[in-house]
């Protein structure tokens, strides 16, 4: 009995924490399939990075999750509320920054935020408190009374971001939140996303791969409407071609032959081989790892009294995995 209760509690906690559930989502525009059978979940405390080439279906997916586009098929649940059956209630727990950060140019920053707060059901003291809070978080205090059309791109972007967090939502969906920002602002926004990600469920899309490493706890790569990779940034990096191989430059005689004899070596690739030195890449066997391989090479070098100039384990780069699994239209 006790066991059942504890299972029940675990089950309940699991579902309570599942803030975004997307199930077999599909979107067809005319004859073009933009999003094809996409399913994923985002838990509370998770920052999900959405990656993919242009036109992969990132924005379309986000527009469906936020209730702007009607899906052709599939289901979306936000915090336990079905978006298709009860859109107004589901939208309450979402904060959304659309692509290109749209704003009303004839309004002031304060006026715009006030309008959004009212649509979110905030009035009076709660409204001004919420506005003050987001003005501070997004560093907009100095321009609060300025008209939106006189703002620079960075400020406009942050004004729209401020709008998305006015009501302190449990779910945040940000479509390219760092687009058009300078490096300092990018850093700020990434830090902000990471900080907010501790107690929210966040999805953000980006082209910039280093951003995923900096802010995400999980990443999904989408290509032509389908998920082609899903995992933590580290897991994805390990899947990159050439990840976990060891690059070496060693002075000594017969290095290549000796390296090939090692137990965990799959293959040795030389980039330049001379009589007295070796430069190249060593790939570990499937059941082994780069760390183990590095250690073995080190031990061997000590034993043989080689002069090691370089020994470096490749961590794999998101760039490489991205390029290897998404087919670009240019190449096709």
């Amino acid at each position, binding site marked *: 009995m006790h066991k059942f209760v504890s299972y029940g509690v675990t089950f309940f906690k699991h579902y309570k924490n599942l803030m975004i559930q997307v199930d077999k989502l599909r979107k067809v525009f005319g004859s073009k399939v933009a999003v094809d059978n996409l399913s994923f979940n985002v838990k509370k405390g998770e920052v999900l990075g959405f990656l993919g080439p242009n036109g992969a279906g990132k924005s379309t997916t986000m527009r469906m999750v936020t209730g702007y586009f*009607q899906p052709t098929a599939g289901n979306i649940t936000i915090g336990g509320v079905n978006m298709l059956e009860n859109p107004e209630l589901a*939208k309450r727990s979402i904060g959304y920054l659309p692509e290109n950060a749209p704003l009303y140019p004839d309004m002031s920053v304060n006026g715009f935020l006030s309008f959004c707060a009212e649509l979110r059901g905030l009035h009076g003291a709660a409204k001004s408190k919420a506005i003050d809070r987001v003005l501070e978080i997004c560093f907009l205090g100095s321009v609060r009374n300025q008209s939106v059309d006189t703002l620079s791109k960075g400020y406009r972007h942050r004004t729209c971001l401020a709008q998305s967090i006015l009501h302190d939502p449990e779910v945040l969906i940000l479509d390219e939140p760092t687009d058009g920002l300078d490096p300092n602002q990018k850093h700020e926004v990434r830090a902000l996303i990471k900080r907010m990600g501790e107690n929210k469920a966040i999805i953000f899309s980006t082209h910039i791969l280093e951003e995923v490493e900096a802010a995400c706890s999980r990443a999904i790569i989408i290509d032509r409407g389908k998920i082609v990779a899903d995992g933590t940034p580290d897991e994805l990096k390990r899947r990159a071609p050439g990840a976990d191989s060891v690059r070496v430059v060693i002075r000594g005689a017969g290095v290549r032959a000796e390296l090939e004899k090692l137990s965990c070596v799959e293959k040795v690739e030389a980039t330049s081989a001379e009589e007295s030195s070796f430069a190249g890449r060593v790939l570990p066997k499937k059941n082994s790892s780069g760390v183990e391989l590095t250690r073995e090479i080190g031990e061997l070098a000590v034993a043989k009294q080689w002069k090691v100039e370089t020994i470096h384990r490749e961590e794999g780069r998101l760039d490489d995995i991205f390029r290897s699994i998404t087919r670009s239209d240019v190449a096709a």
Partner: protein
Amino acid sequence: MKNAFAVFKREFFSYFNSPVAYVILVIFLLVTQGFTFFFGNFLEAGDASLTQAFFMWHPWIYMVLAPAVGMKLWSEEHRLGTLELLMTMPISPWQSILGKFLAASAVWAIALFLTFPIVITVLYLGNPDPGPILSAYVASFMYAISCLAVTCAISAFTRSQVICFIISVALCLLLTLFGMQQVIEAIVKTLPSSMEGVVRFISYLCFLTHFSEMSKGLLVLRDLLYFVSVITICLMITSLALNSRRS
């Protein structure tokens, strides 16, 4: 209702934050007064009802000026991308449609209110019956916001304000022309007599027919209901157009 009011407030102030509302108000007042005195023979006619001299010109002015007020309602939202923001807020599309439409209607309410000097003039010069004047004001306002509703529906289909303006003016022109007695008689004469019923029915569906009735002082529920249903249909088309953009 609070949500619709928030949308109303934003839209209404956006008219007065830009020159749009001022330009249209000034032109409307100049043109209505100018037509009344120069073409309506207001002073020579010696008629204190205002129907012929003043209200008769309104449909032709609204035909151009109402689309100018309404053309930005949705096409601007499409162009700026703010439609996406509005439609992902926890409000129903109807609340935003209603809020925006009422804001544009409020501009016309102000415009009509500002024509009060002409009423004072007739009250000073003659001894008019207030009933017809009031009913003509209602008719004029309904005409303005019906043209606005047509524009609102068109603007939901396009992101270009120019296209919206031109199509709306053309539609309002048709809805006005086909209500004119002279135009209808000319059409009836050229078409075979079996078509007469159809032509008269179409003419009955036009704005001007109902406006003429009301502006003569016959505030009939039937005509009022006609304008209300035109507006309702146009706003429903707006809603359908916005939904089709999202699906």
